[in-house]
C-alpha cells in the first residue's frame, strides 16, 4: 500500500478532495470505462481500484482507506440480480450496510463513505454519480478523523 498520507491537504486554496473508488470488474469498472470511451468528462479526484466483485471488498478496505488519509470512499458494484457471480453483491450489501452504520456511529462523517450500484451501460450515470460524490466530499472538507499520523516503516 502506498503512503496516501503524503501531500494531504488542508481546506483552502488548492485543496482537492481525494477519493478512492472500489469498482467491480464486471459492471462499475466497465461503466467507468464507458464514460471514458464516450469522452464524458468528470473531475480527476478519483483513484480507481478494480476488484473482481463487490463481494471481494473487505469492509476493512474502507476503514483502511480512511486511515490512509483519503477524503472519501466510493464502493460500487453490479445492480442486485446482475452480479457476474450471481450473489456476491447481495452478500456484500449486508456487510456494507453494517460498516457504513458502524462508521457513522463512532463519529466518522457519513458523507465520506458512499455506495452505489452502477451497470456497465451506465457511463453517463457513473460520471454524474462521481460529480455528486466529489461535491459532497468537497463540502465537508479534508478528512481529519482516524488518519494515521505516524509514518509507517515499510
Amino acid at each position, binding site marked *: 500500500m502506498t503512503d496516501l498520507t503524503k501531500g494531504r491537504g488542508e481546506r483552502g486554496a488548492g485543496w482537492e478532495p481525494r477519493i478512492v473508488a472500489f469498482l467491480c470488474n464486471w459492471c462499475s469498472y466497465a461503466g467507468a470505462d464507458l464514460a471514458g470511451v464516450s469522452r464524458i468528462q468528470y473531475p480527476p479526484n478519483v483513484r480507481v481500484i478494480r476488484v473482481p466483485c463487490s463481494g471481494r471488498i473487505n469492509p476493512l478496505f474502507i476503514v483502511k482507506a480512511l*486511515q490512509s488519509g483519503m477524503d472519501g470512499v466510493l464502493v460500487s458494484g453490479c445492480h442486485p440480480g446482475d452480479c457476474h457471480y450471481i450473489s456476491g453483491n447481495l*452478500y456484500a450489501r449486508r456487510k*456494507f450496510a*453494517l460498516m457504513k452504520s458502524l462508521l457513522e*456511529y463512532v*463519529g466518522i462523517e457519513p458523507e465520506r463513505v458512499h455506495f*452505489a*450500484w452502477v451497470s456497465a451501460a451506465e457511463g453517463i450515470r457513473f460520471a454524474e454519480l462521481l460529480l455528486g460524490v466529489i461535491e459532497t466530499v468537497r463540502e465537508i472538507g479534508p478528512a481529519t478523523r482516524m488518519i494515521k499520523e505516524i509514518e509507517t516503516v515499510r
Partner: protein
Amino acid sequence: MSEIQEQLRRRVAELLREGTVDLFIGYADASVPLKSSVHVARSAQDAEALVWNACCTSNLAALLPDLLKRPSGFRGEWTPPRVGVVAKGCVSRSIVGLIKAHQIPRDAMYIIGVSCGGMVDRHRASRLLGPAELVEAEFLKGDRLRLRATNGLEREVDLAEVLLGGCRECGHHNAVLADESIGDPIPPDDDIARFADVQAFAERPIEERWQSFQEEVSRCIRCYACREACPNCYCTECFAQETAPQWIGVTTDLSDLMLFHIGRAFHQAGRCVDCGACVAACPQGIDLRLLNQKVNHDVKSLFGGDVGASLDEPEPLMRFEMTDDEGFMTEP
C-alpha cells in the same frame, strides 16, 4: 445458587465416573474478587472444585474448538474427546454458533444447561468504590453484594446494580441447547428496553461520539484479551496479526487502535451473543459492548433473526434477501 452448584458437582462427578465424558469444563473460584477461573475436571474428585455463582463471566464455548478440532499436523483418524460443559444461556448460543460454523461437532459434547440470572461486572462494581481497588466481595442473602476496597471503604449493593450490560438486557436466561438442565428455568423478561445504550449513544452529536470513541479506544493496550475470551474468535490467523496486508500497524498511533476495535466489532456481526466475556476480560475496562451492541442492533433491525437460537437458521451474514435495505446507499 449454591443448590445448583451442589447438583452440578454431583452430576459432573457421575458423568466422569460413568465415562460419559472424558473431561468437563466449568468454573472454579479465582484468587481475585468477582472473578472465576476456568476449571477442567478430569476425575470425580476434580468436580469438587466446580462453582456456580454470579462471577462465572467467561464464555466456556471459547475453549471448545481447541479441544475438539483435529490438531494441525495430526495424522490418522481423529476422535475428539468427549467434553462436558456447563452452559448458561449465552454459552449455549455460542455453542450453537460454533456448531453451525463447523468448528465443533455436536456429538462430542455433553451440555449441562444452567439457568442464569446474570453475572457481575467487576469493572462496574469497582467503580462504585471510587479510585480505591476492590479487594474483597461477599455475596449476602437476598441478592446483595458487599464490596470492600483497599482503603477499608465498604459498600453494600444490589446484585442487579452491578450486572454486566448484556445480562441486564438478557433474553436467554436458559440454555437453548442442552443434554440435561439443572435448576428451574427463568422466564424471559419481555418488557426490557433492549439496545437502550446504543440508541442513547447514537443520539448524541457526531462530535461527541467521535470524542467518546477516541477516549474509549485510547485506553486499549492491545493485549487481545477480548479476542481470547471470545468464542467467535476461532480464526487461526486473526486480522489483527496478519502481515500481508498488515491491517493494524505495530504503532502507538490511535488510528491503529481504532482499526482494531472497528474490525473486531465488525467481525462479530451476526454472531455476537452479548455474553460480556470480552468486557469482563478487558483489563482496561473498555466499553467493548458499545460497539458490539451497535452491530447487534443493526443486524437485528436490518436482517432479523435471533443469534444462536437455532441450529437450522443460517447466520445473518451467510444469507441475503433481494429486498434487503438499501437506505444506506448514495445511489441504489
